[in-house]
């Protein structure tokens, strides 16, 4: 039986850990719709679900890994990307998705983000940006708009925030897009497209956080925040990422900004190894070693 008391299955149910419901997210939070879009995109992409790995850091968004019925890792604060890097390059067959928040990926994990983008590690990063640290009660972060009030900027934020698409693009991401959690159909299309692409893909999703952010910034409910997105989002595909800054309660430029091709870390590594050893490199060496690790232990 599902939460509504009916036996009817929703098409994403099989990829959700029903035994962990209800989730911890607040009423009005955007994370539920974003997670739905993600799972829906995974289904549409046709990717083998056994090869999908979801890695999260810490925070409200970080809990996403715990709700998906897939191989999933809830790691330490800021470290989802380097953990995912190890997974992906050690086993290139895996389809690695990092699903985490702005505090996690941009503040404490900012260094890892720019380096993974620079290396063009083959992974999709979904960065849910709610402009503050929600889990700890609403403190300012590196995405908090100038002037916004938070628990640690009671007089209004006076730190200039990062423009995430600009940061990701400048660091080398081959795919950069931004939507809000109101744009469910477009977000789903974008994630599907990103999943089927190779290289470092970065998707920012602006999400309401009425509990700790909205109510201190004249958008006290999730619905108020959604209305704000509807009235202020401007779809501008191909916009120059440097022009997509977000001001407090100002316009939000959304769309797909970057979609390009560049050799991935593993492509370049393979190329160098082939050049160095050519035919001498015994194919299957790595799998032989993996077989050592994977050998069943005698009971």
């Amino acid at each position, binding site marked *: 039986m599902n939460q509504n008391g009916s036996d009817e299955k929703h098409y994403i149910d099989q990829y959700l*850990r029903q*035994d*962990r419901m209800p989730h911890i997210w607040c009423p009005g939070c955007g994370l539920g719709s974003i997670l739905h879009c993600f799972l829906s995109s995974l289904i549409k992409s046709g990717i083998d*679900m*056994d*090869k999908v*790995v979801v*890695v999260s850091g810490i925070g409200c968004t970080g809990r996403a*890994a*715990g709700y*998906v*019925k*897939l*191989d*999933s*890792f*809830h*790691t*330490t604060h*800021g*470290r989802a*990307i*380097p*953990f*995912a*890097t*190890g*997974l*992906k*390059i*050690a*086993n290139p*067959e*895996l389809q690695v998705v990092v699903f985490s928040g702005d505090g996690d990926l941009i503040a404490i994990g900012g*260094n*890892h983000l720019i*380096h993974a983008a620079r290396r063009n590690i083959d992974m999709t990063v979904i960065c849910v940006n709610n402009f503050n640290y929600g889990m700890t009660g609403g403190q300012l972060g590196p995405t908090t708009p100038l002037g916004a009030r938070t628990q640690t900027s009671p007089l209004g934020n006076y730190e200039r925030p990062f423009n995430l698409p600009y940061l990701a693009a400048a660091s080398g991401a081959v795919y950069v897009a931004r939507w809000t959690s109101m744009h469910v159909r477009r977000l789903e299309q974008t994630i599907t497209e990103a999943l089927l692409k190779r290289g470092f893909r970065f998707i920012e999703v602006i999400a309401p956080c009425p509990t700790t952010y909205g109510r201190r910034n004249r958008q006290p409910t999730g619905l108020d925040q959604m209305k704000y997105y509807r009235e202020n989002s401007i779809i501008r595909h191909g916009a120059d990422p440097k022009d997509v800054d977000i001001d407090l309660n100002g316009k939000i430029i959304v769309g797909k900004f970057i979609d390009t091709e560049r050799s991935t*870390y593993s492509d370049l*590594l393979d190329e*160098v*190894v082939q050049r*160095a*050893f050519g035919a*001498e*490199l*015994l194919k*299957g*060496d*790595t799998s*032989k*070693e*993996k077989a*050592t*690790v*994977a*050998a*069943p*232990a005698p*009971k």
Partner: protein
Amino acid sequence: MSRRGPLVGEFFMNGDIACAEGGISAGCRFFAGYPITPATEVAERMAERLPEVGGIYIQMEDELASMNAILGASWAGVKAMTATSGPGFSLMMENLGLGIMLETPCVLVNIQRAGPSTGLPTLTGQGDMMQARWGSHGLYSIIALSPSSPQECYQHTIKAFNLSEKYRIPVLVMADEIVGHMSEKVVIPPPEDITLTPRRKPTVSPEEYLPYKPDADLVPPMANAGEGYRFHVTGLTHDERGYPVMTAEAQDRLVRRLVDKIERNKADIIEIEEDGIDGADVVVCSYGISARVSEFAVERARDEGIKVGMLRLVTVWPFPEETIRQIAKRVKAFVVPEINYGQIALEVERCAGGAANTILVPHMGGSAHRPETIIDAIRRAVR
């Protein structure tokens, strides 16, 4: 370029390189690291050797990332290691904790230098021994080995991989700058003579698999990512399903097992070397490079007619408590030379429990002890 497989034969190499070769022999095919003196040669050797054996070397942006990357690689089913020194070891503490909590096999080599802070980057120290035991926050037990020679750097790295797979825990190889940079003969046996411990895999279907349901020895079998088990693991306190449970009961159940899986298997894990302890009046207890200087001092003291035994800790953590307790009943004192202001000496003193004195022979780092200092301490101990 020509491609070499695992090396076999006798080589003249330093301890850093021997750690790398030990990793190769153990089946390590993933190294993530960050350059740091005096551990850089481990990374350099891995960068050269791993592509030759079908493995991957990646230089990360810092030691936080390096530690995470090896955890990720291990969960992808590839044996993984990193190497660092003091400042990097401090940064690795965060995700050493994650490795312990997720029960992730991997190996961390620390070529110790003198601290605190940047300290003496090029010169030796043994100041991280307590950090190895307690450096990450919270409660846990750990396994740490302390090589005294390049040959042991090679062997301990293999042993570390085997213990890490057997007990699903990151294992520390606590070498130091002198052992890391001294060159000696290292014998590398043919692969068929090296015993490797395979990963313990689930024997149940994905539907029945519980990622943290332990076997009788308290260690749970481990599925790798991408094998169809669709498991969830978290650094939060969790139950057998891997799901977070925020209660004192869940904490007790989990942490007790994480500690007990090491403490109850101490007899299997601990390796020590004893020499001339029966009938001794005093026992020198040391490890790493300090143990080598101590062995020389013990010989000289014996020449003077002093009945002195030598206890070398090959495994430092878990600590051989029972061995110390038993010896303490039969000797006047322990002499503990170490390149710090007293770390392992505290453990010796605790376990001796007043039955024998503990005489610390401290050294602040930058070089090894002079043997005379240790001989003097032995003389004082029997007086």
